[in-house]
């Protein structure tokens, strides 16, 4: 009975076939355990993140009600008096940056991916790929610097003279550029996974390249393309250094892209740069904001995976 029980949990974690082989070699046995131990680190990371965000947020929500936190329109946690903890200005700031960057990265990214799969020569593609990898490898702090010292004064100020030094627009543009390589490469992968026979069939009907792309390729690869958009949006929501440098540190409810805003991530950085005493309400507030950020990005990632699984066209 005991033996049976043991083999049951064992077979959950290790392949039956290997178990059979293990009986001949004890070396395989400890290898299994060591590898499993390494794998468990990833599991503990997730558990750790959830435990920490929730347990430290509880201290915050003991003093500020969840309703006040989620519906309040004034975020003023650092300066006495009149402290208030309504997270909406931070959420609005994040949404502005996300929307702005998505408006840039999604059309440009999809268009570029279509060009690379449908119009471009192989040689052009071979040149573009490494360049996109360079773009993807530029640190966000450099993008932030570029937004603050180039995009705002050189590009935006001549067009919008009333623009402020720190503004949501320059940060949106920089975040859009940062997520662009991701949209291009994931959309391209999705387009490339459509079977060649479907594409050739469309060309055989006399379609132009644009018709093949817009009426056959993109609809066939739609799940992959949409999931790449969602992943990119989730990345934009979590982006920290660009907004910390270029968007300013002023939490306010505005729809004006020429003014400074503060995002959820920007607030967390601001607090961790200052000397907030551990255990104070300000200290715990970053965990509450972090928890909201985590839930937001996690649900987007799950939606993206769900779309991929649910709507993936299976070709044989």
């Amino acid at each position, binding site marked *: 009975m005991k033996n049976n029980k043991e083999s049951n949990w064992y077979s959950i974690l290790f392949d039956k076939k290997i178990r059979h082989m293990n009986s001949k070699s004890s070396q*395989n046995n400890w290898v*299994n355990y060591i590898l499993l131990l*390494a794998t468990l680190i990833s599991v503990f990371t997730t558990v750790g993140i959830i435990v*920490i965000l929730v347990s430290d947020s509880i201290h915050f929500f003991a003093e500020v009600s969840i309703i006040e936190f989620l519906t309040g329109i004034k975020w003023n946690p650092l300066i006495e008096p009149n402290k208030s903890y309504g997270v909406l200005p931070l959420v609005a700031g994040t949404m502005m940056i996300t929307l702005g960057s998505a408006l840039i990265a999604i059309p440009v990214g999809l268009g570029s991916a279509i060009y690379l799969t449908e119009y471009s020569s192989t040689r052009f593609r071979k040149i573009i790929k490494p360049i996109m990898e360079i773009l993807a490898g530029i*640190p966000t702090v*450099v993008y932030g610097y570029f937004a603050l010292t180039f995009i705002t004064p050189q590009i935006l100020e001549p067009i919008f003279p009333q623009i402020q030094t720190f503004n949501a627009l320059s940060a949106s543009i920089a975040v859009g550029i940062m997520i662009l390589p991701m949209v291009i490469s994931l959309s391209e992968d999705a387009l490339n996974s459509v079977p060649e026979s479907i594409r050739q069939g469309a060309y055989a009907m006399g379609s*132009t390249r644009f018709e093949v792309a817009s009426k056959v390729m993109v609809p066939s690869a739609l799940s992959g393309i949409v999931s790449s958009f969602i992943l990119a949006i989730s990345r934009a929501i979590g982006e920290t250094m660009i907004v910390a440098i270029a968007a300013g540190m002023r939490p306010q409810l505005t729809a004006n892209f020429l003014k400074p805003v503060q995002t959820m991530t920007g607030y967390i950085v601001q607090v961790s740069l200052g000397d907030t005493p551990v255990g104070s309400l300000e200290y715990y507030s*970053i*965990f509450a904001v972090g928890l909201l950020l985590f839930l937001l990005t996690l649900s987007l990632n799950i939606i993206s995976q769900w779309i991929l699984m649910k709507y993936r066209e299976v070709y044989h």
Partner: protein
Amino acid sequence: MSDLHKRRKRTDKIFKVVFLIFIGLALVVLAALIFDIFSKGFIMMDWGFFTNFDSRFPEKAGIKAGLFGTLYVIGLMIPITFITGTATAIYLEEYAPKNKLTDLIKLNIANLAGIPSIIYGMLGLAVFVRTLGLGRSVLAGSLTLSLLVLPVVIVSAQEALRSVPKSLRNASYGLGANHWQTVYKVVLPSALPSIMTGFILAISRAIGETAPLIMMGALTFVMFTPQGIMDSFTVMPIQIFNWTSLPKTEYELVAASGSVVLLLILFALNGLATFIRYKFSRD
């Protein structure tokens, strides 16, 4: 009919140009960024920039502390991440049974890759800095960055292992090797160049990371190089961030100099990864 034909041709041409402009836009931005940073970056860069610590005078400010800090943190991170990342990939590809639990672990790793880096910083602060009592040390920074890049390393190593031809394994089993011998002496060496390529790209991501290290409490103004893994530290991107936030305009040029150094290191790593991929590609 002919009119329709002409219109369709024209739409096709127009969109070709539009899409080309889109790609061109990305290239122009990249060119502008590199030109802007390199043209500003060399104005104030001299040998002193590499041998001086940070300073309240822009002309004396140097990146030595960040350079050594990055070297220590990344140097310590490399073995930790490589061993755990490869081991996890081997378990998932070679040993894990096909069941719900394994699927859950894989889903978990995919989701970890999408969590904002600043949240890893909060994890590092709470677990390594406070609970384990490592303080704001090089070790705590390395462990935090390890957890951050681990999902990327695991996924790319999994792909590398999966791409090893089945015939190689069968040949190994045919010669009487057991499972671990096959994995360790046949599959792993064959997948190593691919694993290295993904790993180097992950390292270069870690070098550029700022937010999680600020979050776990790495310092911004440092006048020393770390002597051991329990010392406090700063890294290059944090120094650059600090310089961008200073009011004196000369610091804008200092920040550009720092960015040049950072970018050159990343380009070199990127080139190394591309070289390995090209050299060992199985065509």
